[in-house]
């Protein structure tokens, strides 16, 4: 029997593990786990174990290993393929326990039964009496966790052994000693492979075992709660239970067993990797840091490709697009297995070519275009113009095509749409019915009004009756510079129109296309949004500007169960990736290098959202009232000046403040409250006491403000995780309390400073508190006792205060270097950033070095190895400074100075640079 036959006939893992075969042998008979990727999904999934099987089969790794033959034994006694296939089928089979669903709830819980069986050796005959275990569920869980931890460690060790063995083998191969080294080396290598495969199998089994245990426990919990057997559940109960389980899978199993386990493995790999091994770990960490600094949307593009198996970029404007077009595209391409020749934009290219190749196709496409947009006033001349642009683009602008590809949304990738968060929401919401609602009839004689920002709006309340928002009649909608006229109320179907989409994608922005809402706000008479929507939809291609608009639209759109908080928060997320317009430091109070998904960034987003919503009176200052936007499809839009306004289908509603701090309601110009009379209430005041009674406690506890709490509870906002509330411990010092808080909330920034810098920062906060006791609600520090509570929200929750202190400490560190202006200027020209703490820290180390030492290191690392120069902080040997390009310039300067050997040996770089002019 060939190896292929063996693989083709291999048993499911559960059977394999139940068998009496030694683990190594088992793996020989079964394809290595990592090779399953080459199998079809059905084949891969076909081998999935049921949890019962898994639990029954999971046994301590040591037991499995004890039964395993050594690699040599395996080779010596290697069974024939027939033996391998026959053997497992000859072992005593256990009847699988009934499915969980069949177990009556009043009997022993399935997990207990399963675990009892799991303690049985796989070779135990069924009729052997197995003593009942009296372990508690916690003990069982701990046991399974222990098995998993051990098998995980074994796996990583086996992986490392395999790597070493492979390296060794390659070394010998490199020496062309194959024929001599073949036997011992290859055997060693083969053994390492088998050990690795066994370890992988054990690990997967243990992981599945624990996950299944937790899963079954969850099911037991559900049926226990319902007091029924699973099969007795009504349809509604079953649906609810299924939903709960699905939630459980997503929220508990996925993060722990897929993400968490992968992270654990990587962490272990790095930990056990020999530190002297050529800087692999260092490079890996550097590469990982680089990845984390990639634009969030680029990373989402890659991730979406991984999960959906389809490429669809998820750009969020030009900035995100640019990043996605390089890293995101490249890795996404790899993740779906297309070659460079079938790159991301392949589908787009095909579309473009299909529509541009011949005149006949052009004519047909034009006809199609006309049909699709056969609204009375559709401007065919405009489409014609756009169409010609496509041809020109095809002939002359390869680069433009690349941009088109990068910006293309292949809307048929619905899965991706469903994944990319608000970007996908963009398609669904932007062109859905919610975006093109039937307008409410415009009552006669309705006056025009203005919103709080002075934006024009038609508010036409019926006298004494209802107030409605009415769009302008179609005839009045005229683009700023003429051209395409798209009716606001009746949108043309945005269905498949490759011509239109390609035209729009390929063209320059039409003269009459207003890509962004004007700074002063939106007016119903502007045609920018309808135009944009006209080009959106399945198969449509959008320019980066359009994509950006769509992303903003989607971000601003309120979805079920959401409110203003989420809409504004999402728009700010987009801004986070547009540092050119919204500087991280200046706008968000973040370090420029901060990754978009870091804790600090999330916190900054939360803080900014709160700040804006308070300023705009969506949340009042005392936290007693929260304004909820109740209707799905409404947009809560954030304009360039951070004003918030509500709109629907491009028409802003009136947000009329009646109080300084409390947003009361929405009123039309006549004073009629729109919220009371619109078909459905669009805005509703939510007394905090009703929706979030805990908020009062929150204020007292100081974990979050009442407002934040209310917002979180009423709209499911992810809780602001950082709590600044501290219980004073025994034997505390105030300075320690501050330092602990800094570490807890700003540890990632603190680590950029040396010990002196950290002391300095702590001192700065200490001094600030002494000067501003109100930031901790006037707590008397002199009488503070252990057990009492301090609310640090006013200090560590205020980004301005925090940033100022960090900035001050950076300045202090720089001053401490005692650099002359010329020196600073010179080093800055080399690339040192005097405002970036790690650079300042590095400068401190470098400047203290002797010139000779520096040049020796430079020579050794750069000249000889062509690599990076690194230095260890003399005060902390765990800190290594990498200088990169800057060191070359510095070294050149030092070498060109032609110092004597004696000077080089005794003079520090700082001493030398003092004299630089």
């Amino acid at each position, binding site marked *: 029997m060939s190896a292929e036959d063996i693989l083709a006939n291999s048993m499911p893992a559960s059977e394999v593990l139940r068998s009496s075969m030694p683990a190594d042998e088992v793996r020989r008979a079964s394809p290595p786990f990592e090779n399953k990727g080459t199998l079809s999904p059905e084949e891969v999934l076909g081998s999935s174990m049921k949890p019962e099987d898994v639990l029954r089969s999971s046994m301590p790794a040591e037991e499995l290993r004890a039964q395993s033959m050594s690699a040599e034994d395996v080779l010596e006694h290697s069974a024939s393929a027939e033996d391998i296939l026959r053997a497992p089928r000859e072992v005593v089979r256990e009847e699988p326990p009934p499915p969980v669903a069949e177990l009556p709830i009043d009997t022993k819980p399935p997990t207990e039964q399963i675990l009892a069986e799991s303690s049985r050796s796989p070779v135990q005959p069924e009729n052997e009496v197995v003593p009942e275990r009296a372990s508690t569920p916690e003990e069982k869980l701990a046991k399974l966790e222990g098995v998993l931890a051990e098998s995980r460690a074994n796996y990583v060790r086996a992986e490392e052994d395999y790597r070493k063995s492979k390296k060794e083998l390659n070394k010998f191969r490199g020496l062309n000693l194959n024929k001599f080294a073949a036997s011992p080396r290859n055997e060693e290598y083969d053994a390492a492979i088998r050990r690795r495969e066994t370890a992988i199998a054990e690990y997967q089994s243990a992981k599945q075992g624990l996950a299944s245990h937790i899963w079954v426990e969850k099911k037991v919990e559900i049926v226990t709660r319902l007091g029924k057997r699973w099969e007795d559940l009504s349809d509604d109960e079953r649906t609810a239970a299924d939903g709960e389980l699905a939630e459980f899978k997503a929220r508990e199993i996925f993060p722990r067993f897929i*993400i968490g386990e992968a992270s654990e493995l990587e962490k272990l790999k790095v930990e056990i990797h020999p530190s002297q091994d050529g800087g692999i770990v260092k*490079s890996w960490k550097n590469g990982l840091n680089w990845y984390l600094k*990639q634009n969030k949307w680029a990373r*989402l593009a890659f991730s979406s490709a991984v999960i959906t198996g389809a490429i669809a970029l998820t750009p969020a404007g030009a900035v995100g697009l640019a990043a996605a077009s390089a890293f995101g595209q490249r890795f996404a391409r790899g993740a779906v297995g297309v070659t460079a020749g079938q790159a991301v934009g392949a589908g787009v290219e095909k579309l473009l070519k299909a529509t541009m190749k011949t005149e006949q196709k052009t004519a047909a496409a034009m006809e199609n275009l006309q049909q699709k947009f056969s609204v009375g006033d559709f401007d065919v001349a405009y489409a014609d113009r756009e169409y010609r642009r496509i041809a020109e683009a095809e002939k002359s602008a390869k680069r433009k095509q690349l941009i088109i590809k990068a910006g293309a949304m292949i809307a048929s990738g619905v899965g991706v749409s469903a994944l990319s968060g608000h970007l996908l929401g963009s398609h669904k919401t932007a062109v859905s019915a919610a975006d093109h609602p039937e307008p409410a009839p415009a009552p006669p004689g309705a006056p025009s009004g203005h919103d709080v920002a002075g934006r024009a709006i038609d508010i036409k309340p019926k006298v004494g009756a209802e107030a409605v928002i009415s769009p302008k009649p179609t005839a009045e909608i005229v683009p700023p510079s003429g051209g395409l006229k798209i009716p606001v109320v009746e949108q043309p179907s945005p269905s498949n129109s490759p011509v239109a989409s390609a035209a729009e994608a390929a063209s320059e922005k039409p003269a009459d296309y207003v890509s962004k809402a004007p700074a002063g706000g939106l007016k119903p008479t502007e045609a920018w949004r309808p135009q944009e929507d006209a080009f959106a939809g399945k198969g449509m291609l959008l320019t980066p500007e359009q994509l950006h608009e769509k992303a903003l639209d989607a971000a601003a759109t309120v979805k079920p169960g959401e409110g203003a908080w989420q809409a504004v928060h999402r728009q700010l997320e987009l801004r986070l990736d547009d540092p050119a317009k919204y500087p991280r430091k200046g706008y968000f109070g973040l370090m420029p290098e901060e990754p978009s998904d870091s804790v600090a960034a999330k916190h900054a987003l939360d803080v900014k959202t709160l700040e804006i919503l308070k300023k705009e009176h969506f949340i009042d200052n005392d936290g007693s009232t929260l304004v909820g936007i109740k209707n799905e499809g409404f947009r809560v839009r954030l304009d360039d000046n951070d004003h918030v306004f509500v709109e629907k289908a491009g028409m802003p509603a009136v947000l009329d403040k009646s109080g300084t701090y409390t947003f009361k309601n929405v009123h039309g110009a006549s004073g009629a409250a729109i919220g009371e009379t619109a078909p459905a209430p669009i805005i509703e005041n939510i007394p905090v006491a009703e929706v979030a009674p805990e908020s009062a406690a929150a204020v007292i506890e100081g974990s979050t403000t009442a407002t934040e709490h209310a917002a979180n509870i009423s709209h499911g906002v992810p809780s602001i995780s950082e709590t600044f509330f501290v219980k004073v411990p025994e034997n505390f010092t105030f300075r320690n309390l501050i330092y602990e808080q800094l570490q807890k909330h700003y540890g990632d920034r603190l680590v950029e400073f040396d010990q002196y810098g950290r002391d300095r920062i702590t001192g700065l906060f200490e001094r600030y508190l002494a000067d501003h006791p109100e930031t901790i609600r006037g707590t008397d520090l002199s009488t503070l006792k252990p057990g009492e509570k301090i609310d640090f929200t006013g200090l560590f929750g205020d980004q301005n205060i925090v940033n100022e202190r960090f900035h001050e400490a950076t300045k202090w560190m720089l001053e401490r270097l005692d650099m002359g202006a010329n020196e600073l200027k010179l080093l800055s020209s080399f690339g040192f950033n005097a405002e970036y703490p790690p650079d300042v820290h590095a400068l401190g180390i470098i400047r203290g070095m002797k010139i000779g030492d520096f040049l020796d290191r430079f020579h050794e690392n750069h000249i000889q190895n062509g*690599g*990076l120069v690194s230095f260890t902080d003399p005060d902390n040997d765990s800190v290594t400074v990498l200088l990169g390009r800057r060191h070359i310039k510095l070294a050149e300067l030092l070498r060109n100075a032609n110092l004597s050997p004696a000077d080089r040996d005794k003079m520090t770089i700082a001493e030398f640079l003092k004299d630089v002019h």
Partner: protein
Amino acid sequence: MPDILNQDITKDLGLDRLSEAERNEALLAIGRVVYEAVLWRVVQLLDDAGRLEFDVALEQAKSDEEILKFLETRVPNLDEIIKEETTRFKSESVQLMRGLV
């Protein structure tokens, strides 16, 4: 027969049950996991000089294009590695989730 590489496993992982923000977080975590695995293999394929060069490139590069160009030059089978790690991640994840019955 569809290859798991091109299979949408959104539902298998339960991501369709998550809120938008949670889903994005989950996606970012998934991307990181796969990237970490790819990177681990990539840095081991580089020789000492290559890794130093990689570090320098990371330190000095002005754009991700430069990094990618470097990787593509030094690791010709980068696509294959990404594909393998993606496949492995998807296979393992789906197997685990579908094993929960």
